[in-house]
């Protein structure tokens, strides 16, 4: 395999039915690269939560994934309204999702907490009115 595998996906805003396609695609790529089930599952969960957040809150965005021998890095960038209080958004159960979104089964306030739980590191930077950038890293244990 090449030293670094790079993947890019554009995520549609408000398209709940297609949400998860990027995560599924990345999961399949990671599987093909031969990573263990646990790492693949954690990466997929992190990415899905980020993807859903962009669909629900930011009218879509872009996902860039790079896989090196040391780590899987996933960057999600959107041009949404931003997160005014990141600490509050990280709290389990806190959500600003609409009733319509909740009816679809989202809005449990577990998105960012799940990312924190399953990524080895999570960095969220946000500027109100300009957008949010989420960086998640999963380390690859040396064989």
């Amino acid at each position: 395999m090449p030293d670094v595998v790079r993947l890019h996906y554009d995520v549609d805003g408000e398209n709940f039915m297609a949400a998860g396609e990027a995560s599924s695609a990345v999961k399949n790529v990671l599987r093909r690269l031969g990573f263990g089930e646990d790492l693949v599952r954690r990466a997929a969960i992190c990415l899905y939560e980020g993807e859903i957040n962009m669909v629900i809150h930011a009218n879509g965005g872009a996902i860039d994934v790079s896989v090196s021998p040391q780590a899987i890095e996933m960057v999600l960038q959107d041009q949404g309204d931003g997160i005014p209080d990141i600490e509050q958004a990280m709290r389990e159960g806190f959500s600003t999702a609409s009733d319509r979104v909740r009816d679809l089964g989202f809005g449990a306030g577990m998105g960012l907490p799940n990312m924190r739980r399953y990524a080895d590191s999570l960095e969220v930077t946000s500027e109100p009115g300009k957008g949010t950038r989420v960086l998640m890293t999963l380390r690859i244990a040396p064989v």
Partner: protein
Amino acid sequence: MIVVELAARLDAKVLCGSEAALGRAVRGAYAGDLLSWVMGRAQAGTAWVTIMSNMNVAAVALLTDVSCVVLSENVTPDEALLVRAAREELVLLSTPLSTYDACWRIREGLADAAVL
């Protein structure tokens, strides 16, 4: 206990699922309708019992790698869920049982199979 045996215990209809997927072992159960919650907690190989029926159920089931999705209370899946589940060889079961009763029977099945 494999998925097809579980279907029999739940008096469930098999809505879709490949032969290989129906032969997969069931390692436990998880019940929940809030997708993010399920996403973070459901363990691979378990049977996920839910009343949610939209297409996002397929995404969560595939990403968590559960052995099957059990729609309780005779819930009918949206067409989009059925199509995606069939495409991805995900097992969808539909049972008349409540979520509670479905989980109870799964536990009985696991006990009989000496998994517990």
